[in-house]
């Protein structure tokens, strides 16, 4: 621990978000009942911006622990801090665009987004499983609530309920996993666990514990076969919330999964890589096959997010610094394009989901070239067409996989991405086909400034990640370097030839 660094600085973005969350709450309570809550949204945006700035600033901190070894800021956690702050910023803008002045519970919504972000950020910087657990719960509970925010509808509470029940079920497994690991090693600090397991073999309890941790996190990242909640929740939750919860908590959960498997159990990789291998294959396949037969756009995107979780897990299974970097990079790329596409869905469909089915999106490009074009662009990125973040992310993931000799995984993955093209294109072609005369489509109100801002962020993010990925890539590699000491050396390129 570097004594020169004030511990508060190591959790600065979290502190900022908390303060702004409380400010939003207080302002909400003091404002007159009938006043518009949108200014609160801008206040929250301000908070997210400040947190983003603080996260960037954290890059200048020397790596180290704080609060008696409970949190650690290093390149890895700061990388994800920035990502989460960015996602929250964009999601808030989307929410600001989608809601109307009369939308119920807006103050709470904005506060919940900010508080949830605190949990997500702590997930990425925690090295004590207790804090991981608390942070995971903060992020989960806030998303449970937000999922059911449209409580007047029949689907809103239902989706919250499903999410809640299955999520808590998973939490129990996660917790049992922690308990068993604690029992086997006598510690809940991630570095402590790593130093307690000194060989490639561990007591059976450790394996069961690790399996339960993976089950628990598998639920959170919606990896198959723990994905059943995803489509329902995405369908029932308001679109701006889906934009957030399909990216930020997932990125955080992936970060902590990385921390756990690479940071705490590096020597047991022989045992967990096959598990991740299968999770990856199942997620990709089930996600893509499931998406094929969806008619509802949000459900389709839910299945697609399962598939994308699978691609990300491919990078995990690669077991190399490149794999970690690829996973981190992919998280960013996926966030950019997915938040972007939900920005469009949220605006076109509105807070109350006027448009749900693919047919409803027919002719979107004709009614609103901006929205249609943006949506097509994000779909293209999701397919993985070059010069978009989606392509480079996928590419890098599979480079990592193939460098580690996971040929079959790469083939399965890329064939899957081929299948995926089919359903993305169904949406894309719908957008670009002439609308039926009787179709009820209206592209919604004029895009607001907030939406434009969100689209600018996500479109430029997706493009930059596709064309000039160097900057983010080097950050991702710096983040991955956090683990190089513990992860086994990747196969050196070109060995086959020499």
């Amino acid at each position, binding site marked *: 621990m570097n004594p020169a660094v004030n511990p508060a600085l190591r959790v600065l973005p979290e502190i900022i978000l908390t303060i702004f969350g409380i400010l939003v709450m207080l302002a909400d309570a003091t404002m007159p009942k009938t006043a518009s809550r949108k200014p609160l949204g801008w206040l929250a945006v301000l908070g997210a911006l400040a947190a983003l700035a603080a996260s960037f600033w954290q890059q200048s901190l020397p790596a180290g622990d704080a609060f008696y070894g409970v949190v650690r800021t290093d390149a890895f956690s700061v990388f994800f801090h920035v990502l989460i702050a960015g996602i929250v910023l964009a999601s808030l803008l989307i929410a600001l665009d989608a809601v109307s002045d009369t939308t119920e519970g807006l103050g709470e919504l904005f506060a919940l987004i900010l508080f949830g972000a605190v949990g997500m950020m702590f997930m990425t910087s925690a090295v004590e499983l207790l804090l991981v657990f608390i942070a995971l719960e*903060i992020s989960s509970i806030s998303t449970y609530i937000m999922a059911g*925010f449209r409580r007047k509808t029949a689907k809103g509470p239902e989706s919250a309920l499903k999410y809640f029940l299955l999520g808590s079920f998973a939490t129990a497994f996660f917790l049992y996993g922690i308990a068993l690991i604690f029992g086997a090693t006598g510690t809940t600090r991630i570095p402590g666990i790593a130093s307690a397991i000194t060989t490639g073999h561990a007591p*059976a309890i450790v394996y069961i514990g690790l399996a339960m941790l993976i089950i628990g996190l598998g639920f959170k990242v919606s990896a198959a076969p723990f994905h059943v909640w995803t489509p329902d929740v995405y369908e029932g939750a308001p679109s701006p919330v889906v934009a957030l919860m399909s990216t930020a908590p997932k990125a955080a959960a992936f970060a902590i999964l990385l921390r756990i498997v690479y940071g705490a159990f590096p020597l047991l990789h022989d045992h967990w890589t096959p598990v991740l291998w299968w999770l990856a294959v199942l997620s990709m396949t089930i996600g893509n096959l499931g998406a094929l037969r969806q008619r509802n756009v949000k459900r389709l995107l839910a299945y697609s997010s399962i598939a994308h979780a699978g691609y990300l897990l491919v990078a995990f299974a690669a077991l190399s610094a490149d794999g970690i970097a690829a996973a981190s990079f992919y998280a960013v790329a996926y966030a950019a394009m997915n938040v972007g596409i939900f920005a469009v869905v949220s605006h076109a469909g509105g807070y109350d989901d006027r448009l749900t089915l693919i047919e409803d999106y027919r002719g979107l490009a004709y009614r609103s070239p901006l929205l249609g074009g943006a949506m097509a662009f994000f779909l293209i990125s999701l397919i993985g067409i070059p010069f978009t973040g989606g392509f480079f992310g996928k590419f890098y993931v599979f480079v990592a996989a193939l460098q580690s000799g996971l040929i079959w995984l790469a083939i399965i993955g890329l064939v899957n991405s081929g299948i995926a093209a089919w359903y993305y294109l169904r949406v894309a072609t719908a957008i670009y086909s002439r609308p039926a005369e009787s179709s009820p489509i209206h592209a919604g109100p004029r895009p607001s400034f907030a939406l434009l801002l969100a689209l600018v962020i996500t479109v430029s993010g997706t493009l930059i990640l596709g064309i000039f990925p160097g900057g983010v890539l080097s950050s991702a590699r710096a983040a991955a370097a956090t683990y190089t000491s513990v992860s086994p050396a990747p196969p050196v390129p070109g060995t086959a030839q020499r």
Partner: protein
Amino acid sequence: MHLALFLIFGALCVAGALNLLLQRHPINSALSLIVVMSSLAVLYLLLGAEFLAAAQVIVYAGAIMVLFTFVIMLLNAGREERTRGSKMAYVIGFPGAAVLLALLAYVFISHSGDFHRVHVGEYVVSTAALSGVLFRDLLLPFEVTSILILIAILGAVALARKEH
């Protein structure tokens, strides 16, 4: 005496849990769960966790489960119906749980040599010792918990608020 207490309250726990599983009316299930929780409190005492035992009773039995019964009463939940879904669940539920149990039990039994035996009063954690660790080493998680609670309050208010 430790053994006797363990057996009594352990059996009570299992009986309560099974009752929760078998009872058809939610309020009976809730009461069974209260029995489990209270028995667990006694087991905590046996394991030297005084503070937790009390907290278990206050928080779980006294607050959380009251909330449950309150909601059951408020919504006037009736007996559970048997539906098509439940048959399916039986097929997955029991074998799944049985496999899990078998696995865990096997592991614990095969490792039983590594574990201590507990004597009453051998290692009792005082509340002061507990708070010593809590407010120093784990201060940050403790503080962060407040955010969690804040979220829970916000959420409960937002979701269960009366219609205007």
